[in-house]
């Protein structure tokens, strides 16, 4: 159940996720190697616009990518009607965006 627009949204979101995922993994290895405590990590991320943008765009890309991927699985497994499918896709997108945004806020807001 993909047209060109959804296909492009899924590919572009994947392209955005690749460097961000690598950055995230590199960051985690650095933090663990350096033995940073949760408090020390928060001290660095809170109030940092750069980290907010980094994880904010990660969350946005994940929400788009996962919602479209699930849409295909739901449609092909259950042959759901298009209106319901659209509603479900938007729900997944907004749900992930909301949860992700809360996490980013918690880690990067002052």
């Amino acid at each position, binding site marked *: *159940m*993909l*047209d*060109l627009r*959804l*296909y*492009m949204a899924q*590919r572009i979101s994947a392209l955005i996720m690749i460097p961000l995922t690598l950055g995230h993994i590199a960051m985690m290895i650095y933090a663990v190697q350096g033995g940073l405590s949760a408090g020390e990590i928060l001290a660095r991320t809170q109030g940092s616009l750069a980290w907010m943008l980094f994880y904010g765009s990660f969350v946005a890309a994940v929400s788009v990518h996962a919602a479209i991927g699930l849409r*295909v699985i739901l*449609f*092909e*497994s259950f*042959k759901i009607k298009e209106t319901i499918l659209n509603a479900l896709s938007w729900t997944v997108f907004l749900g992930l965006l909301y949860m992700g945004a809360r996490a980013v806020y918690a880690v990067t807001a002052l």
Partner: protein
Amino acid sequence: MSNIRDMPNGQTMEVRVWRSDGEGGRFEGFDVPQRESQTILDVVSWIQQNADSTLSYRFACRVGMCGSCAMMVNGQPRWTCRTHVKKVLKNNRLTVEPLRNLPVIKDLVADMDPFFDKWVKAEGVFHPSKTRADAIEAISSEHPMRVEADRAIECINCAVCYAACDVVEANPDYLGPAALNRAWTLMNDERDAGHDVRLDAVSQKGGCHNCHSQQSCVRFCPNELNPTASIAGLKRETAKSFFRRRD
């Protein structure tokens, strides 16, 4: 038939054939003599000629040219005139059914309309760019576009790939491997003037972007074509046009 020898030991095989009047249906069993160099089409013809003359099936050329004889054999789509019994016989049993993913007209005869309707929907038709008054355009057989088209051109419209494709099963609007493969050959035809309409046609909801690239079509295409590669070509071109045509 009398000039074809039965196997010396008179061995037979168990053949289960799908019988249907279009609504519902059931398997019917037949004992069919085994012969040397016997094809699935020979088996079906033997049943029709010797056991039950009401059995309906379709074939024409018997040599792998016309694409009309495809059926499901032991659950897999095959061109029956070129499939040898010894290649697919399991435990001395054969199951023959009409092609998957298509409505059934009767017995082994699938209704090919949805398959061919999708060729039209995918703009699998040539859009002339010249009139008959113009000189014929010379196309080099080595031109990269021609080479690309050549790779996909030998399709016999058998719908084996269509029956093999799980996305067709899951999404009845999906145009399917053969129609999209055909569209790709035309995208590589320099004389064709329909590139933009075709890119729109293959970008619809049932278009090329639904392909999962798992290559069942490649695995089963009797002519060893690669519809997945053609579809990947369409995905590439539509993605490029997504930016180009927004300017």
